[in-house]
């Protein structure tokens, strides 16, 4: 990492301002908010994966003392006819470029005709306490007529089978194809070909705080306030305003402290809308706090893709063509569209030069929990398929996997590099900066280098121990549009107040944006207030997902500050009786260049700028010191990383011990190295959990078999190794700070790196693990079979 400039806060490992409340137990999560006369909600959820709702009898539930309301789907439909959702679709530029077909079945707030997955909400109870609400929920009599469950996405695409959404006439609710070059010809001419099936299983973010929503309606002003554990307050406001038929200005959405999101909280859920709707109906605040069991069976899952990938390559291991057809099992609904699946397609070839490529995808409905983005959002699946393929090429030719990567990587000198496909924003994909081979070398060196490892591996094998080295690489488009907004204001006391459309779930945004603002204004971070995740702060916002907030909000802050700075300097020039060009921002004020004692403070400027009598503005200047900017990045900026792992596999127990783990990562200019490392290590831990421990499993009837944290295993401190991080820093030319996104990256490569390491360790057994997760049982079986 380049040395931080001592006169700047960007680049410094500044400790987090958020910590003080969180360390003292003074964080305020939705479950901590209590309002007078508040009711508590509990849901009746489907015990079956696929069934027709014959009847819902609420009589016994309604009779429970303390129950204020019991409501099922049919009655809700009468009270609240469906309102079209306002999901942001892909831009016209994408739609006209990429051959595609998309159906978008819209999930009702409560199931009416059918239930489509175990956990789908059928009825809701409001009561004086959560205990009473749950008691009453148990007394709701639901008569369901079982339908065959659609569980296997590959079966589901065959004609004549059971349909999840009959009106569509198919379970394929989305499809697209992209291609470049001449795949047919190049594949036919390739001296070597191999074809494999890669399955990336279903897992998800599982934040430690489950979801929650609290709605309170103020009849006096006909307005609604919603607190939700969401990553997208403005999107929720937009939808709530539609459901409630209120102008957006009378709906306020706040995400208070949020206990992790990772994408799972990155869209609007039925409960986010139903709870406020009911709060208005009953005239009392209503709070719903999801419990962990509910979370696992109704908050969105992710991954779950099956790739059939064929690669053609020459005798040197150079890739000549790739054809990939894949299926994504999106579960019962597809709340956030085709973006994740499209991500998989365009991230497939990652850091490698592949001139002939054809990828086609089908998004398939099944009777499982709906799928939505989770940290990595389609890229772990792509990286897994690609990086396993690289190792298979290496094995076929007897060449080191690292060498195959080296031979195929796009060199740093080729940047900016146009890969010849459109991104999901419709823009041509251009790798804007980065040095992939350098990252590869550094990561491999950090685990001791290939040659030294091979020697250790050989010696260990002689003693019956199985060591493996695995590499996983990826590229990631980050900071996607369409926009983010920031309002920058200078308060009368000269302090900066910045409101933005991003929402934090633990990333430390208040800290890093204060650093950025401090540099933009030559003030100290402690002179900056950052207000996020509140629709009252800024009129239009997009929210936090897709590794985008550092990029998009910093851009918005930069340009809003530019506008405001012009005004500040003009006022200061008037006060100091000099020209604007002679002025600079310095130490919380404006001073004459070279004569720092000739200065006015920002407070003096703010007072001069105020509206009213005796102001100090130049003639004709509008009063006030506040500017808003909506930054529309032209397209994404590309990060990359190489993960390298050395594992020891115990073939008796199937245990995989991660001996060394190194990550060489490039996310452009680093705002705060301490927090950056936190993001990368945290992401990598989730990726390691994904490949080795976590997973949603369903039985043939669509029953979720992993409905508790005893079955869905999250990694603990003893499961995750220490990691060595190597930072490369290729600034992005696409935004004023040169930053790139970092939120997701860590989670992308671990499945590939670990799978490759395990396969390398078990090479004597000729084992291929082309599916995730890799469990101890599979390892023991594979070693025994040999």
């Amino acid at each position: 990492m380049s040395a931080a400039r001592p006169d700047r806060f960007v680049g410094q490992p500044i400790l987090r301002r958020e910590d003080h409340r969180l360390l003292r137990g003074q964080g305020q999560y939705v479950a901590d908010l209590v309002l007078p006369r508040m009711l508590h909600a509990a849901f009746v959820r489907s015990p079956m994966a696929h069934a027709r709702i014959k009847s819902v009898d609420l009589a016994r539930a309604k009779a429970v003392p303390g129950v204020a309301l019991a409501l099922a789907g049919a009655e809700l439909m009468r009270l609240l006819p469906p309102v079209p959702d306002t999901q942001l679709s892909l831009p016209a530029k994408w739609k006209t470029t990429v051959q595609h077909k998309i159906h978008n079945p819209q999930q009702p707030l409560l199931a009416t005709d059918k239930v489509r997955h175990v956990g789908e909400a059928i009825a809701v109870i409001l009561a004086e306490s959560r205990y009473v609400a749950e008691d009453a929920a148990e007394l709701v009599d639901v008569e369901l007529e079982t339908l065959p469950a659609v569980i296997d996405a590959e079966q589901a695409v065959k004609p004549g089978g059971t349909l999840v959404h009959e009106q569509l006439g198919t379970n394929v609710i989305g499809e697209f194809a992209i291609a470049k070059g001449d795949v047919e010809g190049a594949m036919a001419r390739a001296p070597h070909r191999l074809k494999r099936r890669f399955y990336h299983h279903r897992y998800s973010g599982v934040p430690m705080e489950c979801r929650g929503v609290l709605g309170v309606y103020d009849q006096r002003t006909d307005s609604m306030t919603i607190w939700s554990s969401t990553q997208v307050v403005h999107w929720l406001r937009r939808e709530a305003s539609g459901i409630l038929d209120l102008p957006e200005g009378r709906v306020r959405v706040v995400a208070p402290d949020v206990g992790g999101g990772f994408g799972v909280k990155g869209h609007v859920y039925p409960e986010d809308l139903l709870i406020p709707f009911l709060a208005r109906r009953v005239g009392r605040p209503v709070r719903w706090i999801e419990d962990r069991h509910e979370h696992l069976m109704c908050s969105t899952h992710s991954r779950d893709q099956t790739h059939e990938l064929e690669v053609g390559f020459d005798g040197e291991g150079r890739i000549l063509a790739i054809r990939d057809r894949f299926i994504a099992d999106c579960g019962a609904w597809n709340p956030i569209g085709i973006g994740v699946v499209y991500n998989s397609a365009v991230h497939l070839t990652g850091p490698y030069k592949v001139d002939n490529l054809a990828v086609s995808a089908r998004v398939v409905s099944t009777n499982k929990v709906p799928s939505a983005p989770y940290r990595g959002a389609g890229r772990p699946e792509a990286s897994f398929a690609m990086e396993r393929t690289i190792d298979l090429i290496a094995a076929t030719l007897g060449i080191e996997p690292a060498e195959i990567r080296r031979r195929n990587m796009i060199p740093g000198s080729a940047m900016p590099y146009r890969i010849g496909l459109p991104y999901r924003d419709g823009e041509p994909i251009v790798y804007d900066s980065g040095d992939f081979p350098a990252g590869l070398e550094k990561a491999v060196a950090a685990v001791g280098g290939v040659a030294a490892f091979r020697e250790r591996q050989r010696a260990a094998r002689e003693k019956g121990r199985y060591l493996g080295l695995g590499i996983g690489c990826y590229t990631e488009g980050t900071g996607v549009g369409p926009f983010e907004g920031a309002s920058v204001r200078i308060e009368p006391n000269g302090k900066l107040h910045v409101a933005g459309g991003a929402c934090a779930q633990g990333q430390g945004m208040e800290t890093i944006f204060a650093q950025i603002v401090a540099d933009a204004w030559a003030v100290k971070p402690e002179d900056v207030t950052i207000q996020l995740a509140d629709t009252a702060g800024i009129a239009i916002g997009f929210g936090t997902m897709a590794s985008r907030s550092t990029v998009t909000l910093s851009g918005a802050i930069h340009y809003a500050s530019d506008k405001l700075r012009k005004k500040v300097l003009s006022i200061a020039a008037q006060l100091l009786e000099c020209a604007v060009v002679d002025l600079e921002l310095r130490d919380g004020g404006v001073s004459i260049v070279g004569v720092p004692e000739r200065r006015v403070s920002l407070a003096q400027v703010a007072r001069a700028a105020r509206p009213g009598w005796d102001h100090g503005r130049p003639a004709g200047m509008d009063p006030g010191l506040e500017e808003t900017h909506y930054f529309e990045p032209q397209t994404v900026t590309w990060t990359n990383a190489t993960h390298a792992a050395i594992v020891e596999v115990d073939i008796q127990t199937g245990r995989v011990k991660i001996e060394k783990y190194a990550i060489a990562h490039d996310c452009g200019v680093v705002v705060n190295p301490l927090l950056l490392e936190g993001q990368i290590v945290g992401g990598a831990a989730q990726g390691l959990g994904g490949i080795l421990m976590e997973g949603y499993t369903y039985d043939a009837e669509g029953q979720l078999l992993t409905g508790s944290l005893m079955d869905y295993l999250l990694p603990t401190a003893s499961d995750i190794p220490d990691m060595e991080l190597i930072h490369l820093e290729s600034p992005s030319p696409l935004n004023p700070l040169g930053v790139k996104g970092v939120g997701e990256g860590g989670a992308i490569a671990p499945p590939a790196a670990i799978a490759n390491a395990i396969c390398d360790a078990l090479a004597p057994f000729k084992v291929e693990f082309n599916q995730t997760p890799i469990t101890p049982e599979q390892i023991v079986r594979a070693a025994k079979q040999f």
Partner: protein
Amino acid sequence: MSDLIDIRLTVNGVAHEGRAEPRRLLVDFLREDLGLTGTHAGCEHGICGACTVLFNGEAARSCIMLAVQANGAEIRTIEGLTEDGRLHPLQEAFHREHGLQCGFCTPGMLIAALDFLRVNPSPSEEEIREAMSAVICRCTGYRNIVRAVASAAQKMQVKP
């Protein structure tokens, strides 16, 4: 529903009285009846450890205990970790080492660490990892939590 039971207990050195149904969970009693919302419910089935409190001096999961079991007990929660408003060395270390992100597991993590360092004041890294595996963190990847506990252990030993 059944009759309410009287509960008398001490939390963070302060005597409290309350009434609760026999089935009421201790975590709900602490959070909702006493307003001590620093203790978090992350799974409500005893796995994640976010709800960890000191129960008569030992770490316990308040989501799988009943409030009535706490009658006569002495409990310490995250709100009782600071002394005279000053951060405890563990809290300081978590801040310094960036041992928290979303903060949801943090109260349980700190209380579990407090209990652990009482039993094992100078632990090895492996011992820290094993002990801290009692609480699940989804954000940090644990690296900085392990560093924070190690660093706090050193500071706490130096202190009288």
